[in-house]
């Protein structure tokens, strides 16, 4: 049957602006799904590809009895157990000194991908982790000094699955380049460093295709029974956890944003096709009167939605898959991931087709059913059902409003003229607000939390690593440098926290009771007293409550003690445990650990935090501090902020795209609805023009009607947007990052203002149509 397909083509051509708009939203929705879903799966595959290739440890265990390794090999699902040592020590490259890490070379687990040079073959040799090598331009033959111990000759550069993201720990995962680096060294290097700094670890690798959760539980249980102080699963490993934030982000986007786009496109298609059926009542009546079955009519009008959905899906997939691949490549290149896996998965085109076609067909269902239900005799008369007309809700609720000038009563009543269509505009505004506000809120949250981290919590100006134990003389020497206002020693130790339900590995920070170099964002505003203050995630991870007791283990010192949780801190980054220096010293003294004073004063275990005088030249003062004989390095504590800003570029790009998409979404639907509204009223509008009402005045009526709908839409929009933003940010929260929603007061106001702007923009084509009305023709058409 050629006639109906031809009719469909001509109908679409006559209203191509509106059909193209609907098509565009379907394309965008499917494209976003394909791109983000593929990016999420590709990134996950890329990371896992690297991890599998390099046999990344499924579990990393710190401490434990000498028989632990043997015990672990008997656990079902464990394939390999390899011992290794590592130590955090001051490293020096040229004139730069920083607190780095030396890690013993391993053979089977946590293998290294040597990208330049070769593995060490002699003694006092090592491979530079790639971020370290790139920052300092290390080549084979260069030397890196383990300060005060020995020089390590670099034999090459390597990528490690443990340091794809160069995080020192879960609590310190944003380190400025040159502030942290890793050397993979021969065993003799670990023999030479201060043994108090050395951690003994076991790296566990599982059999393929095991139940990871079950094996994790069994390994954890065995390790804790045998005295392990730290048990970190692969998923919780700092680098992996940081990288998975991106994966999580894409996973969320693969569902949330496409769903919104397809919902809006469905609404737009529904509006358009409902109008089409209405305007073709007499045609439908003629078709039915001449023998076309209901089924044929139903299939015909469903076919509009099917074509829109299918074409939109095909175009969306064609654009989305390459976009997803490009995003994957951009991410892996930016982050230095060695394996970039990009696969064509059947689920992507199938899912995209399903979403697109579903959006199209479902939106056409009601209009098609309406067409089928038309009684041919009624439809042939060509009489439109009378528009239900009554006074507006406003006039009924506020009778004085009936005294408004008639032109404004017409505007207000126009809103109720077609409740479904008006609801479409309200829904469009609410959805667009959600999209715009959630993305804007993400920017606000990240900016506010980073400001809080660097301006309130870690507000000190400099970090000093000494070349000798941190004692009163060292602190005094640093404090005596002109431009230094405050110098305080800070102890940083690896810690394992055991609560009622589980154990959590973190870092312990010991500040002086009256510290000026750190801010505690607690309920009371105070730091720890005689107990500990912990990050909020510690409560969730261990099951402890405020007022409860944690068993704090310090594997580096071989000490464990019970501490009362006095309060929690809401810090954007990390979930550390804080104890006052005085309390720590009391505990260590009462524990009787030999040489604890020297142990905690060791460079690296103790650092000196600085506050500088206002208005001083930061660089000059830090240089002066670094010139002190007792100082190994003095670095700007705010330098990490610059590094973070660098990585934010990609984030802002994505946010910008989301904002633009939100605007496009709203414009598309409002344009469609307004076009349909105007098409229904061309007779009235042309008669008004014929009787002397200018197109500008009519344009004001149209603008006012839609601005009122926008104002109605922003109310649920604000509620939905805020709820969605809160939920979205919470999905990014882990123990490493606390992304509670924080927005500036102006953000919601600006979002609302943006919606009014979007409405005005989307009305422009409709206003132009009013200006270009062929009055002479339209006044002679029967009103529809």
């Amino acid at each position: 049957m050629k006639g109906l397909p031809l009719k469909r083509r001509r109908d679409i051509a006559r209203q191509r602006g509106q059909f193209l708009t609907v098509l565009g939203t379907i394309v965008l929705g499917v494209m976003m799904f394909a791109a983000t879903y593929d990016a999420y799966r590709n990134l996950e595959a890329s990371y896992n590809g690297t991890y599998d290739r390099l046999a990344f440890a499924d579990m990393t265990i710190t401490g434990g009895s000498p028989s632990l390794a043997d015990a672990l090999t008997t656990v079902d699902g464990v394939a390999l157990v390899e011992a290794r040592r590592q130590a955090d020590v001051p490293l020096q490259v040229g004139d730069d000194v920083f607190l780095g890490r030396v890690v013993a070379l391993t053979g089977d687990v946590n293998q290294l991908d040597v990208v330049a040079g070769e593995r060490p073959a002699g003694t006092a040799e090592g491979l530079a982790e790639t971020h370290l090598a790139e920052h300092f331009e290390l080549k084979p033959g260069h030397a890196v000094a383990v300060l005060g111990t020995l020089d390590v000759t670099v034999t090459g550069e390597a990528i490690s699955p443990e340091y794809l993201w160069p995080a020192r720990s879960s609590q310190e995962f944003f380190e400025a380049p040159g502030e942290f680096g890793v050397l993979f060294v021969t065993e003799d290097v670990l023999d030479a460093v201060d043994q108090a700094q050395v951690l003994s670890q076991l790296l566990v690798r599982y059999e393929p295709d095991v139940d990871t959760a079950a094996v994790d539980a069994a390994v954890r249980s065995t390790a804790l029974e045998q005295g392990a102080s730290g048990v970190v699963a692969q998923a919780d490993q700092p680098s992996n956890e940081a990288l998975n934030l991106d994966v999580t982000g894409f996973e969320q986007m693969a569902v949330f944003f496409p769903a919104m786009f397809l919902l809006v496109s469905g609404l737009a298609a529904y509006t358009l096709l409902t109008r089409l059926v209405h305007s073709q009542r007499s045609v439908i009546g003629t078709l039915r009167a001449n023998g076309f079955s209901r089924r044929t009519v139903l299939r015909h009008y469903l076919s509009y939605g099917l074509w829109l959905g299918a074409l939109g899906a095909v175009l969306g997939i064609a654009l989305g898959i390459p976009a997803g691949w490009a995003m994957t490549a951009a991410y892996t290149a930016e982050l230095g991931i060695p394996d970039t896996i990009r696969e064509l998965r059947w689920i992507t085109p199938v899912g995209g087709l399903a979403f697109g076609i579903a959006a199209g067909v479902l939106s056409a269902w009601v209009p098609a059913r309406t067409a089928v239900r038309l009684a041919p005799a009624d439809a042939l008369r060509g009489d439109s059902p009378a528009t239900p007309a009554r006074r507006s809700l406003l006039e009924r609720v506020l009778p004085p409003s009936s005294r408004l000038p008639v032109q404004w009563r017409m505007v207000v009543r126009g809103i109720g003229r077609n409740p479904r269509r008006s609801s479409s505009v309200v829904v469009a505004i609410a959805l667009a607000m959600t999209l715009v506000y959630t993305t804007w809120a993400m920017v606000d949250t990240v900016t506010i939390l980073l400001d809080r981290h660097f301006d309130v919590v870690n507000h000190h100006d400099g970090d000093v690593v000494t070349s000798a134990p941190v004692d009163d003389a060292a602190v005094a020497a640093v404090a005596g440098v002109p431009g230094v206002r405050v110098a305080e020693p800070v102890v940083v130790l690896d810690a394992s926290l055991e609560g009622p339900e589980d154990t959590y590995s973190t870092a312990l920070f010991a500040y002086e009771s009256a510290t000026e170099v750190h801010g505690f964002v607690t309920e009371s505003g105070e730091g720890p007293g005689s107990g500990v203050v912990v990050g909020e995630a510690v409560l969730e991870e261990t099951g402890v409550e405020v007022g409860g007791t944690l068993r704090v283990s310090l594997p580096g010192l071989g000490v464990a003690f019970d501490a009362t949780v006095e309060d929690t801190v809401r810090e954007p980054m990390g979930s550390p445990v804080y104890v006052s220096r005085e309390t720590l010293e009391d505990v260590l003294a009462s524990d009787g650990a030999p040489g604890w004073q020297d142990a905690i004063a060791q460079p690296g275990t103790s650092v000196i935090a600085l506050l500088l005088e206002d208005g001083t030249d930061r660089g000059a003062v830090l240089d002066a501090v670094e010139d002190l004989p007792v100082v190994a390095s003095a670095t700007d504590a705010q330098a990490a902020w610059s590094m973070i800003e660098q990585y934010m570029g990609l984030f802002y790009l994505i946010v910008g795209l989301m904002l633009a998409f939100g605007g496009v979404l709203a414009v598309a639907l409002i344009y469609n609805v307004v076009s349909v509204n105007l098409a229904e009223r061309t007779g009235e509008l042309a008669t008004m023009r014929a009787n002397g009402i200018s197109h500008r005045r009519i344009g004001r009526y149209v603008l006012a009607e839609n601005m009122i709908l926008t104002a109605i839409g922003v109310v649920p929009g604000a509620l939905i947007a805020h709820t969605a933003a809160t939920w979205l940010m919470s999905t990014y929260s882990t123990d490493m990052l606390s992304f509670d929603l924080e927005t500036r007061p102006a953000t919601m106001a600006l979002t609302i203002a943006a919606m009014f702007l979007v409405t005005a923009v989307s009305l422009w084509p409709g206003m132009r149509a009013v200006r270009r009305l062929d009055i002479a023709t339209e006044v002679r058409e029967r009103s529809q």
Partner: protein
Amino acid sequence: MGKHVAAGAAVDAPSGHAIRAENLTKTYGTGDTAVHALEDVTFGIPRGEFVVMLGPSGSGKTTMLNVVGALDAPTGGDLHVMGTSLSDLGEDARTHYRLSSIGFVFQFFNLVPTLTALENVELLAELTGGNAETRARDALHQVGLGDRVDHFPGQLSGGEQQRVSIARALVKDVPLLLCDEPTGALDIDTGINILRVLRDTTERGHTVLLVTHNSEIARMADRVLRLLDGRLVADEPNVAPAAPEDLTW
């Protein structure tokens, strides 16, 4: 084109003429495909007359109404309506002319469905100053709808809706009414009522130009203009116009 006169300027038109056309021409398209909708049409309609323009489909009568109503511009000749030259009017001037000088009544009423009869009339009254509601009520009273002012179009019959559209045209207090097949969508009895209403407006000094293909309606006119293929073939005063009640079709 005749000499250019500033839009809206008073012209020494022959006294008593509501509409004066001289060699009026309207052509659509160019070359071989040009359509001469009006060719050298010359006529004058005195004020206060009820004039019917007759002609078959395609004769140019709708075009004539469009040109007189400034919905379209003539291609050549002169056209003055109530002293206003309609040559070279810009968009704003045409809108102002339609607001202040003429009222349209169409076959399809095109009332705003969400406004009552009173409000539909008041909508235009508000634009022309004065007490809009009072003037709207008076206009509806004139057309015999004084007791239906608060009804919505969906609650009115076809004839009542057409009377509302006539009231809408009258409320502007314009001297000239242009009617395009005003009874075309109505049954004969309702149509006769409408014609009576229109006829009555001339008693109050309005001029009516009614375009139709129904020659029976021409019997009630003071003057009949006949168009054929774009040309004026007859301009006939009617010495004894029939009453609307005497018409039948």
